[in-house]
């Protein structure tokens, strides 16, 4: 399963997922604590520096940013037209978030999905005292990744059935066979896991 990761040989890519995630969290808190314009400037400069250091193609990064920036610009435009006053503060706030989204996008483009999933699994282990079972969460994440292509194909079949009938009056009826199929599939998969000796009471401590 391919993610949005974009491979380059750079120091930013080699940083651990935990370091990048922690850094993003810290940068977000610092930028939000600073006054709007200053925060936007700080996050923007940091983002540009990382963009250069990560050797990523600028066009590709901008493409990832296009949707949120267009949306923010439209919302800002409406507000500036309607309200008139206070647009400078709004502009600073919007730019600040656009810069933070740039930082987050850079993290996603430079970190492999597998490394992020590993990071989540380490975080689940830390949450064990709260009743989180890291072994089960890890298994569910792996199962979900495995099921996505299968379910994407199934949904595509529902859509094709819908198109073949023209404008379908009862879309709900089309989803029913899919849902029944998923629930039956769950029975088979449960039996398969049990047959291979999967023990749901194992909390993953002694593996």
């Amino acid at each position, binding site marked *: 399963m391919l993610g949005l990761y974009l491979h380059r040989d750079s120091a930013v890519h080699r940083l651990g997922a935990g370091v990048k995630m922690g850094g993003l969290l810290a940068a977000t808190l610092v930028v939000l604590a600073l006054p709007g314009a200053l925060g936007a400037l700080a996050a923007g400069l940091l983002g540009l520096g990382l963009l250069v250091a990560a050797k990523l193609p600028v066009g590709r990064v901008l493409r990832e940013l296009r949707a949120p920036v267009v949306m923010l610009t439209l919302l800002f435009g409406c507000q500036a037209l309607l309200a008139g006053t206070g647009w400078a503060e709004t502009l600073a706030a919007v730019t600040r*978030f656009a810069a933070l989204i740039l930082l987050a996008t850079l993290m996603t483009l430079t970190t492999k999905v597998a490394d992020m999933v590993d990071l989540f699994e380490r975080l689940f282990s830390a949450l064990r005292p709260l009743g989180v079972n890291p072994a089960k969460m890890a298994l569910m994440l792996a199962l979900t990744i495995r099921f996505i292509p299968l379910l994407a194909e199934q949904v595509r079949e529902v859509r094709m059935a819908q198109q073949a009938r023209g404008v379908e009056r009862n879309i709900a009826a089309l989803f029913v066979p899919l849902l029944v199929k998923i629930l039956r599939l769950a029975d088979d998969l449960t039996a398969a896991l049990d047959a291979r000796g999967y023990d749901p009471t194992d909390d993953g401590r002694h593996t």
Partner: protein
Amino acid sequence: MLSTRDLVLSALFAALVAGLGMAPPIPLGFLPVPITAQSLGVMLAGALLGAKRGGLALLLFVLLVAAGLPLLAGGRGGVGVLMGPSGGFVLAFPVGAFVTGLLAERFATGANPIRLFAVCAIGGILAVYAGGIPWLSVVAGMPLEKAALAVMAFIPGDFIKAGIAAFAAAAVRRAGVLPTAHA
């Protein structure tokens, strides 16, 4: 305590929500905004799996989006999207499924589509917008009421989705394949 079946069901519905996001949006003709089916998955997971497994399914989905898989409608993903203007809606998906499930377990245990519709509307629309609108307001630097106004265009489509989810969930329940919570 999650049984093997619970794990499998949550993972399957998380994958279903991802699959729904990959389907092209359904144009409805009379609405300006095409329906992306992803929030349909939120309602179905809650209504069919219940609060715990449904909420867990959507939590898995959000984690994989955060991990950088392009699972949101339009092939988007990553922490950047979650921090963006519409990120609050996605982050509220697990809450929406949980609330839908909780209400379904209390008030819509049968195959009554009207009750299921109410449950899907409260969990899948009200709870999701309750997370999405304040987030949009913060990110776009706009007052809460204006942020609420800005997303009104999506409400009719979401009610149609609640209707689809309610009828589908009712039919699945009548088919009698639904696993009980403590199977």
